């Protein structure tokens, strides 16, 4: 098992820069998710770690050893592909045993290791089946088996659940996390699905346009987003942004929001007047007649235990998560009250989070 360190990694194709100078460390045994929209450079980063692409600049260290320009095969890492990439001309057992065959291991030992791996994944009964006969989930298990059988230093997974249907994806999420807890292998998991990342990962790196915007635990990334992008990308519905203009003083516990004062977590930096955004998660909004921000109910989306109520305000449309027992009339004018402890402030120009008592410690990429 290994620690993976990325230093100033950059990759450009002709004029297009896919990854720009990211630096981070993935600790031994961590389940590390790289999350971001398509084209954000997460897969390219993963492929560089695997050795399937060579970086334009920067270094990749595996357990302190510089492997930046090593051949993929020389890195001792395993890769699980979104499309599984099971060899169609081999059966399940041969597929799982293939990496060992590449290494020139004896036939007996291969058989034992394949058996052991299959037992772990509960696919022993499938060993002699054709890969084309398998269900999506079983194919994914075989692909995992092929990665595990070699006991590599790290697992790299490129949207491994992306090709499964929703029900199976949920099941496999649980299985993957369970597997990780048992074998404790360093895992780098690329996904664009925040639910997968949030439910499985120890650490999440949120990427955008080739840059790592924030690295943190799922809680950190959700509660203390380092940028508007992260705040917007994570959470469903995403964080609401209410624009205003104003200056900030360190130590203040309120901001002038248009014509009222709104309580916010203690501000930890001074700023001249600039366009800002007040960030509020839908679940931190209450309906109160005395609320400073007023608006008209536009619609409600019933989700079982909760409902998402959208309200048109003078500062834009705001989504609030309320208990589904609350009765709301469309067209009704209501007041909104925010949970002051959980508010976030962003600088619209740079998109960066303003340091406050609650956002302190959110690491930037």
């Amino acid at each position, binding site marked *: 098992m290994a620690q993976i360190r990325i230093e100033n990694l950059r990759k450009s*194709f002709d004029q297009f820069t896919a990854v720009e100078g990211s630096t981070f460390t993935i600790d031994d045994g961590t389940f590390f998710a790289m999350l971001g929209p398509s084209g954000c450079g997460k897969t390219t980063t993963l492929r560089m770690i*695997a*050795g*399937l692409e060579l970086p334009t600049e920067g270094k990749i260290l595996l357990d302190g050893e510089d492997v930046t320009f090593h*051949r*993929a*095969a020389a*890195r001792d*890492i*395993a*890769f699980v*592909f*979104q*499309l*599984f*990439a*099971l*060899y*169609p*001309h081999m059966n399940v057992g041969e597929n799982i045993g*293939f*990496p060992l065959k*590449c*290494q020139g291991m004896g036939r007996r030992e291969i058989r034992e290791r394949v058996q052991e791996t299959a037992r772990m994944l509960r696919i022993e009964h499938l060993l002699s089946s054709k*890969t*084309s*006969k398998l269900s*999506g989930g079983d194919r994914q298990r075989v692909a995992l088996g*092929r990665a595990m059988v*070699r006991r590599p230093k790290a697992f790299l997974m490129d949207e491994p659940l992306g*090709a499964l249907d929703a029900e199976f994806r949920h099941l496999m999420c649980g299985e993957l996390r369970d597997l990780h807890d048992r074998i404790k292998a360093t895992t780098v998991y690329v996904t664009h699905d925040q639910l997968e990342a949030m439910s499985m990962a120890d650490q999440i790196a949120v990427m955008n346009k080739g840059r790592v915007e924030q690295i943190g635990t799922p809680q950190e990334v959700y509660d203390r987003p380092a940028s508007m992008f992260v705040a917007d990308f994570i959470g469903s519905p995403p964080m609401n942004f209410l624009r205003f203009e104003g200056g900030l003083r360190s130590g203040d516990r309120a901001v002038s929001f248009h014509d009222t004062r709104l309580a916010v977590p203690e501000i930890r930096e001074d700023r001249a007047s600039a366009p800002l955004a007040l960030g509020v998660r839908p679940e931190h909004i209450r309906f109160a007649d005395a609320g400073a921000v007023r608006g008209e109910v536009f619609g409600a989306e019933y989700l079982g235990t909760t409902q998402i109520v959208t309200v048109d305000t003078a500062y834009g449309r705001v989504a609030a998560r309320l208990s589904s027992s609350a009765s709301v009339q469309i067209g009704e004018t209501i007041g909104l009250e925010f949970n002051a402890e959980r508010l976030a402030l962003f600088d619209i120009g740079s998109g960066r989070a303003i340091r406050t008592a609650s956002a302190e410690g959110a690491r930037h990429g």
Partner: protein
Amino acid sequence: MTAVATKSTAHSIVEASPRTKAFAGGFVILYAVITILPLLWIVATAFKSQSDAIAYPPKVIFEPTLEGYVNLFTVRTRQTPEFIAKLPPPETWYDKLVRKRDMVIAGPSKVVPRFVNSLIIGFGSTFLAVFLGTLAAYAFSRFRIPLADDLLFFILSTRMMPPVAVAIPIYLMYRQLNLTDTRLGMILLYTAVNVSLAVWLLKGFIDEIPREYEEAALVDGYTRLQALRKVVLPQAVTGIAATAIFCLIFSWNEYAFAVLLTSGEAQTMPPFIPFIIGEGGQDWPAVAAATTLFVVPIVMFTVLLRKHLLRGITFGAVRK
């Protein structure tokens, strides 16, 4: 109204109507007759005697003889009946056959070396074209090659005119290089013509094989070449087989260059067959026999590779 409705439900979209079936069947039979009849005529002519072969009206029913084949494989001289009577009795059935026509066998004809030339040149150039084509197609499909589109266009442009259009310059070039009438020269020439077809066909097939297969193999411990050989090629077999058949058909049948560039040593079957001369002109049964034999390898090759032409080898392993 109701009658129309019943009629339309009775008409199945899956099952063709009897009339359509009959028409389709008739069409297929007609097509088969048109394409197979000349071939059958050739096969039959090879078993006719010289006079039956040129009889008018053509004879459909005739007494079969192996004379055509014997004439194809031998060189014969005419002798007087007295001379033949003095000879010891014929040792083989073909000696006997030849003596009936007042002739004796003087030696083997050139058909075997010509056939061997065709085999070597045809299969040699096919192998080379497919081999080079596979490597080039793989590179074009997988690597970022500067000016890849232009290069592919250049490769295709060699097919934009009939190859014979450049026959004279090639002839002059070959004379300088001492490649005229050599097997190597013919192999190189046919390879050059076929390789562009091979690159384009194979690129299409390789493009369809997901990269993930090789990448998985690369991560699992193979080198690029091993991955190509053990992972990509088994899946490209369909495309390679199809490409090989096309290349072989071209180099096997090629006539114009063969006439121009070969005369002795390296002559292939196509320029040889029309000049099989018997007594008093063209020996039609022998020509037909040669043609029959000439068709056999290509039919065998196609039949052997037929099962690889069926798609579906890669089907289901990857979700598209």
